[in-house]
């Protein structure tokens, strides 16, 4: 068994003719929490969807647990996905089911476990995210942070080897933010999983990840441990980590001369 759960080599991806990812190389060791950062529209969600097998690479290889996910047929992909979890940006809980049924969903779909065992497993997963007491609530009764935690409990229902998180911190208050960050770290360690976190929340993610990749305009522009990233003097990383308005990523969308647009040009 290779030490690398995910190995991406020279991966490119295009929507039609528009090249979104260009020659990505990325490795995730087992047991690590990896962050993929970058500004909006840089291609990081596309990268996530490629890892999940929702999209197929245009070129290059993407190995998940030694299997090239781009070459799998639907049955093989679904078999692999049973060992993967994904946390969507706003949880994507099934709104017609209670919290309990949401977490039980995969157990019911993929196993023949007796009802008592499903109940115990669901309570264990809900307890891990601190929401055992909320099992009877409907998703509409949950706050954003709670919904995210239920979704997390749902994605670990089958003890996956890998969880991918799409913007797990978006729209959370500071308390929920810290709670979610800690949970990701703790669950990864205790369940022996690997986590890939796509985020632009620098401060929260640098506290808990093992390694960071920065994506900008479809290429990886920087990578390193959180300490290396904080100390980096690359202009893009510096702008991103410190949230500066101007730098390699300009504030202004490309436009003709301002004076010209206002009709002030001589």
């Amino acid at each position, binding site marked *: 068994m290779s030490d690398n759960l995910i190995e991406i080599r020279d991966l490119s991806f295009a929507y039609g003719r528009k090249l979104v990812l260009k020659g990505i190389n990325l490795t995730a060791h087992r047991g690590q929490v990896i962050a993929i950062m970058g500004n909006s529209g840089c291609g990081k969600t596309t990268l996530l969807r490629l890892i999940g097998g929702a999209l197929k690479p245009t070129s290059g290889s993407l190995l998940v647990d030694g299997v090239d996910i781009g070459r799998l047929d639907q049955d093989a992909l679904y078999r692999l996905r049973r060992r993967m979890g994904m946390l969507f940006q706003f949880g*994507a809980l099934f709104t017609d089911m209670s919290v309990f049924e949401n977490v039980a969903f995969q157990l019911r779909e993929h196993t023949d476990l007796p009802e008592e065992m499903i109940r115990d497993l669901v309570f264990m997963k809900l307890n891990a995210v601190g929401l055992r007491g909320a099992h009877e609530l409907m998703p509409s009764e949950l706050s954003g942070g709670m919904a995210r935690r239920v979704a997390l409990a749902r994605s670990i229902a089958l003890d996956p080897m890998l969880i991918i998180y799409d913007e797990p911190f978006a729209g959370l208050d500071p308390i929920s933010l810290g709670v979610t960050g800690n949970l990701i770290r703790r669950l990864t360690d205790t369940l022996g999983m690997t986590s890939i976190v796509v985020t632009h929340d620098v401060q929260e993610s640098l506290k808990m990840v093992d390694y960071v990749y920065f994506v900008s305009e479809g290429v990886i522009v920087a990578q390193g441990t959180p300490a290396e990233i904080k100390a980096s003097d690359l202009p893009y990383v510096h702008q991103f980590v410190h949230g500066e308005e101007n730098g390699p990523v300009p504030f202004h969308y490309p436009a003709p001369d301002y004076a010209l647009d206002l009709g002030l040009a001589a």
Partner: protein
Amino acid sequence: MIEALIENVRGIGRRTIDRVWRMGVAAHFFVLVFLHSGPSFRRFHLIIREIFSAGVLSLIIILVSGLFVGMVLGLQGYETLQTYGAEESLGVLVSLSLVRELGPVVAALLFASRAGSAITAEIGLMKATEQIAAMEMMAVDPIARVVAPRFWGAVISMPLLAALFSAMGVLGGYLVGVVLIGVDAGSFWSQMQAAVDFKEDVLNGVIKSVVFGVAITIIALFEGYDAPPTAEGVSRATTRTVVTSSLAILGLDFVLTAFMFRGV
């Protein structure tokens, strides 16, 4: 001028190709739903849930409309029949109009606006809130888990609702014709019994309502599944479901009637 004309012609061509393309995609979707129906029959409680939300929840509107349509038929029918001294045949008029035409068609139109729109909105919103994508990521096929049970639930509900609509209509006709106006109850029922043929009338009505049920449901499911994942996209898809399936019902009704009552 010429360019504008060419551009217009191009636009018509583009839209036509788009429509035809979409019909192809919808047909493919229909086949997929059939192929993935196995699991929903093995877990029949999934279908029962959908029979509840599409069928049982549509009961009120179907029953009340049926009653009123029957009452109006009673009034109008009596008016006309009376001029020929044939008011005893009111039962025949009411029951045949309902069983052959109004039952299946009006129930289907109501079903399209009540249940069809709900199905489209639900599936469209499930897609917009990434629930469908989440299901795929959990290695659960959404066509088998979400779409197929809704399809069968609605297709099973439709003929039952049409039958209830007709039954309520007959009751409405009886209330107005016999109880209110005073047509003889004996001839009302016996003429009805003699004139309504099980195969020619009842069975053909059932066949119609099954066909309408399939058409409405597949349009509703496809529009929802195909809706752009935005508020505007879902609202447009819901409107399209009601419009397209209403037109489909009326068009199919003509075709089916032409085939069924050819020799009569």
